[in-house]
């Protein structure tokens, strides 16, 4: 999937992946897509919840081994 910015949140634990994601989204413009890679298993539910509550769209999420990838489109 195409994306405009990438955030490496590997090795970070709750709530840091979400906080870093929020910060990275602040630097994006509306419609841009941010790719986030995380290793926190809790982030799967957290990113879905974050997207739902903030109105930013979670375009896709994927799991490969112990890594989780999210594509978030800024509102």
């Amino acid at each position, binding site marked *: 999937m195409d994306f405009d910015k990438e955030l490496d949140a590997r*090795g*970070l*634990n*709750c*709530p*840091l992946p*979400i*906080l870093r*994601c*929020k910060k990275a989204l602040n630097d994006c413009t509306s419609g841009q897509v941010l790719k986030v890679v995380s*290793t*926190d298993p809790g982030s799967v539910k957290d990113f879905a919840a*974050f997207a739902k*509550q*903030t109105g930013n769209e979670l375009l896709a999420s994927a799991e490969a081994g112990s890594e989780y990838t999210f594509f978030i489109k800024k509102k």
Partner: protein
Amino acid sequence: MDDQKKMAIIATKGTLDWAYPPFILASTAAALGYETQIFFTFYGLQMLRKDLSGLKVSPLGNPGMPMKMPFGPKWFRGITWNMPNAIQSLVPGYESLATVLMKQTIKNNGVASIPELRELCQEAEVKFIACQMTVELFGFDHSEFIDGVEYGGAATFFEFAGETDICLYI
């Protein structure tokens, strides 16, 4: 009417472990778009000090705390070292040792430190209110606390808390 969601937290504990919930919830709430305020009272004031080295964790009288080593091979890390209270209370520096080990475990797990989480809260404009009555009760001086803290009492807390969607006592 302002439709931004709001959350208020009363933080009353002054130990390293109990410093986590207020700062984690407040920083996350701010990231989710909540206007957030933390009211620090009694031992919670410790979390506002410039020097946070006084935040410790005590396994004494805390049966829920697993005592495990943050280093060594996996089998060694798996051992639980919980000791009877009577022994813990006799060993000098037991609490400091537990705190050092806990901080290492926190680091190993990619969990943020308290100074880092507090800074993230401030960056996200979480408002910190310190209870002026307990500041005086405990003989603290405003100069011991970080910048950006407001000082007030119960009525100050209610002014914001009365309009919140979520209000927690920690």
